[in-house]
């Protein structure tokens, strides 16, 4: 059973008052996320990430299509007991303290007073909220609210957790802590579905990603496959490179670019069709010494930019 499955999930809005026009927020999203995965849902601002999460939380209703979480329809009480959700830029009752807020949310799951206190305390420790937990939330910074938001999403030890831009508002230390928290959740068997436009987070955490742009899914799959497929050359780093041999290799096109790294030391970009072994042998014979040889892979950022740039621009409907 998939942790999350959507079939042709679609959401259209009407925009404009006097002459309403349809606007495509999400079109035909079909997606499956396995249990225990850390799944990155990527896309630029306005791509449809938050719309998808709201559909999964049944904060909005689909125009068409279906969504199931842990095999049950979204919005059912059974599903809600087993999931957690961090909205984008979360806001909570500012008259409550962090402790009170978490205990309130815990009470909605029917936990007793002692368990509510214990869960709230453990989670606030886990997200790094110390003595501030007894302050009213109106005194919290954006980053601290984000941490409280992550804690409330985990109050019921969910099997599937949805984070909408979890790193938003966090400083570098906070980002690292939340990355570690997500990895701990994965290790416990929790499925993590997070939306982000920060690609380094996805590269560091995700086993699979999906990319949406302008309301449409443009790519999805395991990160290793997406990026391994896109090897576009080699990088050969050598020292003691004789000038004549380098000039010759540049002239005959076996080296595209030579980036000097120090005296007689270069990073050479080789095109994909070239045999790096042959050039390596020639250069070594001319007196150069090998430092490293690596395939040049497309980064997630390169892939993302290419996919997003290729997405259709029209979001109106015929």
């Amino acid at each position, binding site marked *: 059973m998939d942790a999350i499955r959507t079939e042709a999930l679609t959401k259209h809005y009407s925009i404009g008052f006097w002459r309403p026009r349809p606007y495509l927020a999400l079109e035909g999203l079909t997606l499956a996320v396995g249990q225990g995965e850390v799944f990155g849902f990527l896309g630029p601002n306005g791509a449809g990430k938050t719309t998808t999460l709201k559909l999964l939380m049944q*904060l909005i209703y689909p125009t068409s299509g279906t969504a199931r979480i842990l095999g049950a329809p979204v919005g059912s009480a059974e599903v809600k007991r087993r999931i957690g*959700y961090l*909205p984008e830029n979360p*806001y909570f009752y500012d*008259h409550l303290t962090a402790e009170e807020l978490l205990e309130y949310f815990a009470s909605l799951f029917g936990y007793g007073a002692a368990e509510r206190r214990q869960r709230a305390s453990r989670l606030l420790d886990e997200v790094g909220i110390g003595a501030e937990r007894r302050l009213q939330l109106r005194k919290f910074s954006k980053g601290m609210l984000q941490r409280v938001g992550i804690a409330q999403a985990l109050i019921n030890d969910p099997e599937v957790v949805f984070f909408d831009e979890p790193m938003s508002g966090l400083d570098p230390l906070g980002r690292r802590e939340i990355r570690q928290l997500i990895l701990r959740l994965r290790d416990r068997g929790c499925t993590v579905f997070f939306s982000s436009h920060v690609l380094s987070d996805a590269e560091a955490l995700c086993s699979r990603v999906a990319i949406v742009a302008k309301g449409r899914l443009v790519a999805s799959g395991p990160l290793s496959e997406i990026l391994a497929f896109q090897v576009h050359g080699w990088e050969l780093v050598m020292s003691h490179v004789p000038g004549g041999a380098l000039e010759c290799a540049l002239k005959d096109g076996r080296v595209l670019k030579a980036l000097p790294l120090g005296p007689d030391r270069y990073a050479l970009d080789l095109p994909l069709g070239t045999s790096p072994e042959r050039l390596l042998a020639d250069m070594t014979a001319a007196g150069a010494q090998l430092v490293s040889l690596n395939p040049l892979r497309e980064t997630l950022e390169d892939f993302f930019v290419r996919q997003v740039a290729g997405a259709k621009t029209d979001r109106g409907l015929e």
Partner: protein
Amino acid sequence: MSALRTVGTVAVSVFRESVRDKVLYNLVAFAVLLMAASYLIGQLTAGQDIKIIKDLGLAAIATFGLMIAVFIGIGLVWKEVERRSIYSLLSKPLSRAEFILGKYCGLGLTLVVNVLVMVVAWYVVLAYMATTVPAEVRASWPAPATDLGMLRAVGLILVELMLVTAIALFFSTFSSPFLSAGFTLGLWVVGHFNADLKNFEGVVDSRAAAWFAHGLYYVLPNFSAFDIKQQAVYAQAVPASYLATTALYGGVYIALLLTASVAVFSRRDFK
């Protein structure tokens, strides 16, 4: 977890928010101050002091209760949606219907506590007044200063306030606070003249207009039915059957409004 317990959890949260809201304290304090003012007016009006204090007390309870019901009621749902706190809340095991009912019960609890505080302050002023009046004057009063029969009027005021809260909450599920306040107060005013609509055919020639007015009479809430302040002040008898049917009328209207609120809110997209 039972639905009732979930509704109770939300209601307690609303009550706690109201208690921490300084505006609420100010309203109660102001009501108490008004009681004191009514006492001073009573000092200047020979023989009429107790009646004026009873009148002003009931009017103050109704007015301050109305302010709380309208101005907190219109923000109950709107605030949650506007600030997006509802996103986290509805992802928990809480249905939209439980959310609406919890909000309503929470404000209802706030109103009950506030009305109780005002009633206690009012009776304290009345009791004090009674001690300052000679026994022969007291004997001429139609009822004792602290006549518990007046609580019947307070009871119907409370039902009226619960109805106003249900109206405010209904508008709050789909409208802005400004419009909700306008609609709610508008209905409250119209509802106090509702009885006139029943006999509209005596005022207009048009049969259609008369039927329309008649229709409105049955659709709009009849707030004048809840007003038995004069009878309470003059210690006139109010049949128990009238109290029961009026309370039942209020209860049915509230139930219909809450059903409509849940229906509207359950279909709403939180963009």
